[in-house]
């Protein structure tokens, strides 16, 4: 009543059905349940005003004491039964009579009622339903990118030779703190706390990205050991929150941000989105049934409806009023808008739905497993989620990134991380700063315009960003090789000692910090940072009469490290020699030293901005980073400066490059001269950019037919195959590359990655060792090696690995 007073200002309202006293349904309900509002009031007065606080208080379930509670009994006790009842009743109803009524309504009504009135035309409803369905499908496909293909693997970015993913390997059990948390009333431990620091920092950078509206290029994470339930939480919650935070941006942007987050957390965004939709529809149907069915409680629904209509008509003699009352009950826009809204909501938000009760069951199961594990060494735990958790932790692999302010190597990232963690214990400090500089992008702009001039910061900024490196997730394979017993023992031991709480967490954390410190120190010594080329200290080729020629010769012989020295002597002598820089870049890349490779390539491009090979190389390098804009820029300028295809490229396009435009231009180029391998190579690179790996593979294969002896092309093919989860094929391609160039360090290392991706860790170790024997400076390979050793449970070799003792390793792992 109060509500009606509110709405109408207390004036009498003749609309039937809108107040409890005149509402036949409410009256009926009151009659049935025997609770009129008066008795309710009385009962309420009898309720104690103070609630006893003992936990063993009495329940009062027998009678509803709150007004309106009776509706819930009707609505929700058997909603589906009622719904189908209604539908059944509807079909059974006197169709002729119904149709008559319908026609009357239909003719005398404003058009917007037609939509909601479609209840009388089931086919219409179904039609609308199908429309929803068919419209939704493509959207869903749209928001389920190929990311899931990437998620379970190392993302092999070494398409050719410039790549930058930085693995920092973290000692087992040092990196991550498990928080075992006991809910105060729940005696069973719930291992719901993820490795906090890593995750917090990570999520933080996600939030940060919302401020400046810059694309989120997350620091790839270590295997955090998130359970499916955790993942689902992250997926659902970030999706919903992102929509609040990124409201300014397009849906695509928001989706991309969330995808980037989920992808780097190794969460498959596609599965749930697809899986949940049927539920949505049934929900919708239920909802529809409920909202319809509930109004005809106690009647044969359809007939009741008709009767009710007749009553109203008799009372009012005016169909308009019926419409009005309908409107009151259903809302102004009623079903039509409800549907539209539903439709758009689903299109926008369809993938965000998820958690349900079964997930909690799953969580409970995990908890129980964890609990049992503490006491039991039974091998059947191999399949437990908890073991996976422990295993992921123990692998301790950390692939990291410098999504941060300083141009950084892994060490700098570590410094950043360290800073964030130590200095930023209270984020207040740090974020005062962040806020002051508005956002990362702006800071970048500032720093870089200082150091390099404003024209370059954009490139560099994008160059600094990295793509998530994705961590292999083949648990089954892995478990067959792991000494599960050990972990179980260790875990049981720790739990037994009660050492699994904060103290040990802290130990791990501090050990991890120490480790990061070390990393930082080493990196600072080596002084490598992107964009700045670091020359070797001792170079016998300085003073050589023709170091370029010497370098080319050494490169041809495959003596890459020697060639690097000679070429360095060359560029010291002639800093403007683009060819010297270019070859130096290639030598570094083939030697698996990406930092130096990129630095030399940037130099080469500085000296000669139109060098096609350099442009292609830079395009590829940015493709490796999945930096679409930068990659497109280089590939486009490759086309622009190409003597043959330059005419294809309209100059005005260079302002705003879109993937589709550039791809189209290269397609044209490929049609123009189908025998030009370079064009097919660029196409292959472009398809990598859009993650159309099948097309990329066929482009590279076409190029290989034209240029079968291009070992770097074989490597590109292999890397693409590896990225599209064809590691076995990739190995064949790498083998081709190695047959052509036995000293191709990168191919050896890639080979190792492919074996690791297939769970053949012993094999992968052999290849890494081989690569390292040829170039001990390949830091990435050392890191991969460490991961593989850990996965292969060869912790005994850690020492040799850490001290970079190749003699021991080569003896242990001959190829």
């Amino acid at each position, binding site marked *: 009543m109060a509500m009606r007073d509110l709405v109408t200002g207390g004036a009498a309202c003749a609309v039937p059905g809108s107040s409890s006293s005149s509402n036949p349904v409410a009256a009926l309900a009151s009659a049935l349940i025997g609770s009129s509002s008066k008795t309710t009031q009385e009962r309420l007065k009898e309720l104690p005003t103070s609630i006893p606080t003992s936990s063993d208080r009495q329940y009062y*379930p027998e009678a509803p004491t*709150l007004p309106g509670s009776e509706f819930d009994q009707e609505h929700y006790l058997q909603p589906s039964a009622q719904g189908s009842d209604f539908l059944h009743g509807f079909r059974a109803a006197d169709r002729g009579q119904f149709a008559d009524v319908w026609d009357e309504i239909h003719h005398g009504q404003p058009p917007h009622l037609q939509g909601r009135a479609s209840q009388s035309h089931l086919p219409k409803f179904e039609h609308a339903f199908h429309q929803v369905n068919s419209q939704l499908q493509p959207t869903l496909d749209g928001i389920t990118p190929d990311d899931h293909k990437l998620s379970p693997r190392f993302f092999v970015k070494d398409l050719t030779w410039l790549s930058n993913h930085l693995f920092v390997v973290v000692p087992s059990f040092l990196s991550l703190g498990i928080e075992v948390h*006991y809910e105060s009333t729940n005696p069973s431990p719930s291992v719901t706390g993820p490795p906090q620091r890593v995750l917090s920092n990570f*999520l933080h950078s996600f939030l940060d990205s919302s401020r400046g509206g810059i694309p989120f290029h997350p620091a790839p994470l270590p295997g955090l050991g998130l359970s499916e339930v*955790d993942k689902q939480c992250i997926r659902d*919650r970030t999706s919903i929150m992102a929509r609040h935070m990124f409201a*300014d941006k397009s849906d695509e942007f928001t989706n991309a941000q969330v995808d980037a987050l989920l992808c780097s957390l190794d969460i498959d965004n596609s599965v749930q989105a697809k899986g949940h939709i049927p539920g949505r529809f049934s929900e919708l149907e239920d909802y529809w049934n409920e909202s319809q069915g509930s*109004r005809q409680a106690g009647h044969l629904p359809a007939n009741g409806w008709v009767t009710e209509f007749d009553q109203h008509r008799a009372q009012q003699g005016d169909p308009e009023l019926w419409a009005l009352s309908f409107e009151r009950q259903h809302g102004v826009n009623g079903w039509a808008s409800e549907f539209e809204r539903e439709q758009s909501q689903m299109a926008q938000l369809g993938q965000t739905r998820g958690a349900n009760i079964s997930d909690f069951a799953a969580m409970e199961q995990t908890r129980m497993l964890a609990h049992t594990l503490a006491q039991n060494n039974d091998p059947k735990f191999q399949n437990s989620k908890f073991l996976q958790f422990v295993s992921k932790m123990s692998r301790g692999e950390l692939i990291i990134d410098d999504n941060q302010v300083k141009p950084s190597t892994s060490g700098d990232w570590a410094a950043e991380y360290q800073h964030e963690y130590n200095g930023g214990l209270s984020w207040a400090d740090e974020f005062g700063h962040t806020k002051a500089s508005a956002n990362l992008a702006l800071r970048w702009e500032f720093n870089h315009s200082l150091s390099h001039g404003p024209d370059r910061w954009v490139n560099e900024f994008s160059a600094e960003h990295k793509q998530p490196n994705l961590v292999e997730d083949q648990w089954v394979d892995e478990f067959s090789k792991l000494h599960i017993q050990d972990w179980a023992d260790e875990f049981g031991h720790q739990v037994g000692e009660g050492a699994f709480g904060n103290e040990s967490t802290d130990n791990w954390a501090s050990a991890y910090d120490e480790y990061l410190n070390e990393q930082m120190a080493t990196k600072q010594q080596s002084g490598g940072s992107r964009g700045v080329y670091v020359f070797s200290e001792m170079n016998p080729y300085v003073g050589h009469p023709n170091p370029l020629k010497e370098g080319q010769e050494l490169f041809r012989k495959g003596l890459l490290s020697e060639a690097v020295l000679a070429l360095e002597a060359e560029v010291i002598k002639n800093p403007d020699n683009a060819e010297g820089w270019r070859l130096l870049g290639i030598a570094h890349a083939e030697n698996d030293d990406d930092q130096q490779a990129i630095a030399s390539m940037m130099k080469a491009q500085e000296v000669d901005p139109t060098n096609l090979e350099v442009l292609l190389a830079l395009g590829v390098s940015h493709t490796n980073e999945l930096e679409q804009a930068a990659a497109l820029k280089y590939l486009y300028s490759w086309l622009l400066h190409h003597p043959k295809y330059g005419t294809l490229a309209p100059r005005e396009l260079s302002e705003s490059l879109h993937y589709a435009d550039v791809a189209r231009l290269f397609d044209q180029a490929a049609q123009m001269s189908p025998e030009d391998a370079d064009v097919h190579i660029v196409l292959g690179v472009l398809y990598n950019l859009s993650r159309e790996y099948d097309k990329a593979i066929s482009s590279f294969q076409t190029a290989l037919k034209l240029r079968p002896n291009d070992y770097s092309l074989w490597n590109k093919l292999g890397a693409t195959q590896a990225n599209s989860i064809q590691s076995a094929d990739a190995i064949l391609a790498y083998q081709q590359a190695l047959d052509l160039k036995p000293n191709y360090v990168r191919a050896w290392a890639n080979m190792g990655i492919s074996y690791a991706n297939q769970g053949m860790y012993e094999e992968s170790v052999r290849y890494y060792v081989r690569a390292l024997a040829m170039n001990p400076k390949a830091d990435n390979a050392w890191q991969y090696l460490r991961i593989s050793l850990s996965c292969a449970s060869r912790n005994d070799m850690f020492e040799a690995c850490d001290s970079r003792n190749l003699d021991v390793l080569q003896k242990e792992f001959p190829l």
Partner: protein
Amino acid sequence: MPVFKTPFNGYAVKFSPFYESRLAVATSQNFGILGNGRLHILNLNPSGPISEFGFFETSDGIYDLTWSEDNDNIVIAAIADGSVKIYDLSLPPTQNPIRSLHEHSREVHSADYNPVRRDSFLTSSWDDTVKLWTIDRPTSVRTFKEHTYCVYSAAWNPRHADVFASASGDCTLRIWDVREPASTMIIPAHEFEILSCDWNKYDESCIVSASVDKSIRVWDVRNFRIPVAVLNGHGYAVRKVKCSPHRQNMIVSCSYDMTVCMWDYMVEDSLVTRYDHHTEFAVGVDMSVLVEGLMASTGWDELVYVWQHGMDPRAP
């Protein structure tokens, strides 16, 4: 003014309706995306720092809380795992929560205790429903399921015991009378998701909504074709809005733009004060019923600020 540091990210803060020096804070680890939750009960000291009266831990984040209007020791927490937990401060943590209600199938995003009837409370959830509970019953009294997307907030009318409003991601504000079978009114209040709503404490037909569209809108439910006022000024989604318990025309809000704003919707230049003290998303704000002008806010910077309106929250 005093500041309290929470270990997790703040989500909601509410003053006790019984004690002017007591407030409760809901927090969640990792921004509520994953991890545990903690409910802090804090005491304000007239001179000196905020002290912690006690805290309760949960296995998932806590998104909101509400104090009982009937018993000074009862706090109800909305938990991200879909449960609603009732805590009794007079009991030790081991005996808490005194009740854990598991009906929502998804994150519970708000809780509001009925200030008139004082025997029941509402929770709203990402499962698209609002549920009505009483403190003494193990199951919900009623479920309101009409919204087609997450319901971010549900708020009782301060005058009419049976009337409440709900704000949803389906871009509607719905007004309900629990004596009615369905919602009484659907207000398409914003073009974007609506994150919060609150009733004016002096005008029973005046309701305020806050949206992702960065605006706050003031509505008269008797004529909701056009808003009474549109308050622009936040730079990002407005996360929570609250009508002053002391001034009819005053509204406080907090936003993802990290600020807390005080508005006077009756005047043209509505933005009265902008408080820029948080260094992360400001997601919780409240005004004390017992002390005029006393405000509290919390945010993802893990800080709880309590200050007098007009003062600098960060002033020592």
